[in-house]
């Protein structure tokens, strides 16, 4: 088995990661906080190559919720990239943007749904939307490549226009299902 088959990653020809990057630029995003996910690998590379973006690799996703709050205090816009398991690490820290009424956009690549191979990805993947909504986050899903850019655009607009945590969940069916030969 190839290592890369353990992770869901989009087809190399898929251009929706570039569309997300373009949206981050259009919205003036300057701070990109992330814990890597294979589904975000191409977007992360684009951000790393951009000298006008501060890319911060976190030790745990909740750091990103706090960092985006600090960025907004200083007048900069940020975004948090992570996979669905990482959402579980953010729960209490979401009280920060909620209580302060500050923007907190998240772009989440889903695991634990279509074609998942790893049992540990399923519990949080199955709960991601419900957990975020339970914590007052506006959650939108994108399950086709064509849906991703408009959904991410809405997530960024809702965050920065209405001052709250928002999330786009990018379905695993878009990112790539795994069969592992089974």
């Amino acid at each position, binding site marked *: 088995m190839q290592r890369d088959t353990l992770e869901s990653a989009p087809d190399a020809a898929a251009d929706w990661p570039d569309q997300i990057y373009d949206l981050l630029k259009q919205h003036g995003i300057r701070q990109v906080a992330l814990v890597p996910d294979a589904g975000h690998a191409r977007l992360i590379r684009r951000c790393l190559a951009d000298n006008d973006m501060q890319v911060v690799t976190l030790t745990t996703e909740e750091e990103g919720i706090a960092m985006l709050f600090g*960025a907004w205090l200083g*007048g900069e816009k940020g975004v948090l990239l992570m996979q669905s398991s990482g959402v579980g690490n953010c729960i209490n820290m979401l009280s920060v943007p909620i209580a302060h009424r500050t923007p907190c956009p998240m772009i989440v690549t889903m695991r634990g749904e279509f074609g998942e191979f790893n049992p540990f990805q399923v519990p949080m993947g199955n709960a991601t939307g419900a957990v975020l909504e339970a914590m007052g986050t506006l959650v939108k899903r994108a399950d086709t490549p064509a849906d991703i850019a408009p959904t991410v655009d809405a997530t960024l607009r809702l965050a920065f226009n209405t001052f709250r945590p928002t999330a786009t969940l990018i379905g695993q069916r878009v990112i790539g299902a795994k069969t592992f030969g089974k």
Partner: protein
Amino acid sequence: MSLDAIELGKSGRLERRSVVRALLAERGDMLAIGGLGAPAWDITAAGDSPLNLPLWGGMGGAAMMGLGLALAQPSRRVLVITGDGEMLMGIGSLATIATKQPRNLSVVVLDNEHYGETGMQETATRHGVDLAGMARAAGITDARRVDKPDEVLALRDAIRGGAGPLFAQVKIDDASLPLVLPPREASILQARMREAILGPAAHLQ
């Protein structure tokens, strides 16, 4: 500032509010984030200000908020003042901060070796955990332990003039002091700091 301004508690360790007063006196436009619990009351006791962001929650997040703010405002000094319990909960952020090496960020931990707001239960530092050593090992070169009044004054100078990132573990007396509470409506706390930094345009961003 004279050494007399730095007081000692009954234990002989530094008195927390005199430390915080010294760090924030004549602060100019330095921004301060006060971690959940006593450090938030301490920065308020030193003089509530739009340049202060006292935290009522988000335990473990103070240092990372400082990083986001320091990256957004590279020409301003950003001082995070937090407690040992709060820092321990977000201890990984020392690694994250070290990777970015923000020159304008200082993180000061007021270490009383206890969870002060919940009944003075012991934290890991009570058992010898060396926060300054952890920060230094993460890659924050100027990571110091502060025990004496003259070291507080040296820290004060380093925060103002030195090249960050800077980390300090300040060993303090564990007395619980009278509450001095900041506003509790957090939307006001963030909006007033944003306006202090960005002017009225903050509210039109």
